[in-house]
């Protein structure tokens, strides 16, 4: 975890939960885990403030606690650092649910994100009471159950009741994660009528939250399908979508490198059942061969059984996607010539300066400048190979070879992205605080105008009200709004880049280097 990531987490927590929670989260970020007295000592906040901040973080599943090893009556709190970053992806999660399940599903997801994990009955009651989407309870219940069966909602470990302990314990078996809850509609109606208490619900004590890894799985699929679509067309993209669907039948979604094999016959069956694309059904073999033969290497043929056995090579796929991403970044920053130099270095693995100039067909001076820019910004590295001997007369001769270390460069760029995201958030906060008065004024005006329109006031009167915002003020406001929108868009774009790089780090193999001990043994 880098300092850039720590700063980003800190600013995200501050934005969502306020300054007190930020101080406590920062304190927990610095250590693996901390006890309450240790947090009190470090933060210098009052016990009440720290307790409340910890309670908020626990409620939103951002902090976990376990009994201290030395004193089992004392809890040790640790921050879920990855989960904090997920806060930035909440809009993406809701948007995905909205496209899949419509406004009702989005309302359920929204409620779970707003109020933290809750029981199914509670979520439905709140959705019916507060949501703008006026739907029947049955619709909400059905949507909730579908979301559970599709693994978008996950059950939290249940509290072990019995002896009253200072540190509560939770337990859940793996098979229970997606067991649908018992939702009693009659009971919900009684609660609405005020005849029953929510705490007496049949599913009391069973809490649900969004299953972030399921969303990430969808995001990952979207990245891969999008790449295929852009390169090989819409039908090929659709074909690959079904390939992934077939892959999940027998493969763990988060298998690191390659999927388990599947046959062409299986894909054919699936497409014939579910697709309406006749062109795809007719030329399926060719589409599959096209994907397999493409340099992106998303799928690989491993046998001839069942019309051809294939695997999805996630390792290679994300390596290729990341490389393409690097190419784009370098083109944007230094131009196409630098991108060419980068590609040559990647293809040749190790290359000398002079050879690089010849291969890239770029004038020597420009090639040198661009390669040094790339080296300076750590997109490429230099490997020194010293020539043996040389005597003591002059400097030892050495070869300097440019090469590309993907994992190292990805980590560096990832930190740059974290920093950029932090800067973007800080900048938008600054813009908001600088023009707070103006933004609030325009918001008030908007609400007044909206109510006036509802009442059916005359247009002249509405215009008169709108004129309270002077033209210079209006101009400034427009500028601020467009700046904020650009910053928000930049945040979304940065997050998609971060996601790709994170997937690369997850799926690619860590290069194994022999330790000195192993070398000695050899």
């Amino acid at each position, binding site marked *: 975890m880098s300092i850039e990531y720590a700063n980003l987490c800190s600013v995200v927590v501050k*934005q969502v*939960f306020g300054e007190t929670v930020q101080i406590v989260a920062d304190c927990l970020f610095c250590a693996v885990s901390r006890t309450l007295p240790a947090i009190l000592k470090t933060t210098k906040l009052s016990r009440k403030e720290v307790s409340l901040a910890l309670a908020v973080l626990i*409620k939103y599943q951002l902090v976990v606690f376990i009994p201290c090893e030395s004193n089992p009556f004392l809890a040790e709190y640790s921050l879920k650092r990855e989960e904090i970053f997920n806060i930035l992806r909440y809009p993406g999660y809701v948007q995905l649910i909205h496209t899949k399940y419509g406004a009702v599903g989005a309302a359920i997801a929204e409620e779970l994100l707003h109020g933290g994990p809750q029981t199914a009955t509670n979520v439905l009651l709140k959705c019916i009471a507060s949501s703008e989407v006026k739907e029947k309870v049955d619709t909400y219940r059905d949507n909730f159950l579908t979301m559970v069966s599709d693994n978008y909602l996950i059950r939290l470990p249940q509290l072990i009741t019995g002896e009253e302990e200072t*540190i509560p314990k939770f337990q859940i078996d793996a098979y229970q994660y997606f067991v649908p809850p018992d939702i009693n509609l009659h009971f919900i109606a009684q609660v609405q009528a005020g005849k029953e208490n929510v705490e007496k619900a049949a599913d009391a004590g069973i809490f649900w939250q969004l299953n972030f890894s399921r969303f990430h799985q969808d995001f990952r699929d979207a990245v891969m399908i999008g790449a295929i679509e852009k390169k090989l067309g819409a039908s090929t993209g659709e074909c690959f979508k079904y390939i992934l669907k077939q892959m999940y039948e027998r493969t763990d979604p988060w298998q690191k490198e390659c999927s388990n094999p599947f046959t062409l016959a299986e894909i054919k069956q699936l497409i014939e059942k579910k697709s309406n694309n006749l062109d795809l059904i007719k030329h399926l073999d060719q589409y599959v061969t096209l994907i397999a033969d493409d340099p992106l290497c998303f799928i690989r043929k491993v046998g001839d059984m069942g019309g051809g056995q294939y695997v999805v090579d996630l390792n290679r796929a994300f390596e290729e996607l990341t490389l393409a991403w690097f190419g784009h970044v370098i083109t944007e920053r230094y131009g196409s010539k630098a991108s060419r130099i980068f590609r040559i270095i990647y293809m040749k693995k190790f290359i000398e*300066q002079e050879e690089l100039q010849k291969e890239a067909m770029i004038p020597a001076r420009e090639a040198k400048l661009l390669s040094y820019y790339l080296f300076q910004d750590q997109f490429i590295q230099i490997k*020194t190979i010293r020539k043996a001997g040389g005597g003591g007369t002059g400097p030892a001769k050495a070869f300097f070879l440019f090469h590309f270390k993907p994992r190292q460069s990805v980590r560096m760029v990832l930190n740059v992205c974290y920093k950029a995201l932090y800067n973007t958030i800080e900048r938008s906060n600054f813009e908001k605080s600088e023009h707070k008065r103006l933004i609030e004024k325009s918001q008030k005006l908007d609400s007044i105008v909206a109510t006036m329109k509802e009442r059916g006031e005359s247009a002249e009167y509405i215009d008169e009200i709108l004129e309270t915002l002077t033209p210079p003020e209006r101009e400034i406001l427009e500028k601020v709004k467009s700046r904020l929108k650009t910053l928000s868009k930049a945040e979304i774009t940065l997050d998609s880049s971060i996601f790709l790089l994170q997937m690369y780090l997850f799926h690619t193999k860590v290069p194994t280097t022999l330790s000195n001990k192993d070398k000695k043994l050899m």
Partner: protein
Amino acid sequence: MAGRGRGKTGSLTQEQLQTLGCIGKDIPQVQTAPPPTFPPLMSKPVKLETTAAQNYQILWREAYLNHMRDSPYFLAPKIPNANSTLQSYSDQWATAVENAKTKTKADFIWQMMPTELHITQKKRRVAGGDKIVSKKPRNIDDRLKVLEEKERNEDEKDITKASSDSEHEEEEEAPADEEMDDENDYGNSYFDNGESYNEEDDNLDDGPVY
């Protein structure tokens, strides 16, 4: 010789740069000042695309942040700004607006959290302190009567005690001393009726004591 030239440094040496092709003018100058905060861009960044999905996300995020800011889980310290000695009218207005916002009560399930986090608002009660004795008697006359009766009873008790004390003087001598030691060093037996006031001191001959 061991380790010579092996250590990694931030930049390349002159010799290494020459091998890489940097000769004469090509050698970059040593940078002594920090790089500018906003360096000029070599090329203009690509314009960001705007999609419907992005717009939805931007609006949702804004609404989410507003919701969280108004929720009881948004904990901001209530410390006034120490730097601002002068408080403007707008500040007062702003704080009044903030206070006027009625936040819903935080809903925590304390059974699912360590007990040390649950700070109850109850004040500590002294054992047996449930009975609240009103300091002011409602009826002064009644109260006085009660006190008189109490005094009378005590006097009677003292008389009976005195008679019994004379009988059991030897037995109770030791506990009485203990009581004296425990409470204070005040001589209860000492009595001064004020007659000796302004009388000549017997020790005048001794002269003043410095």
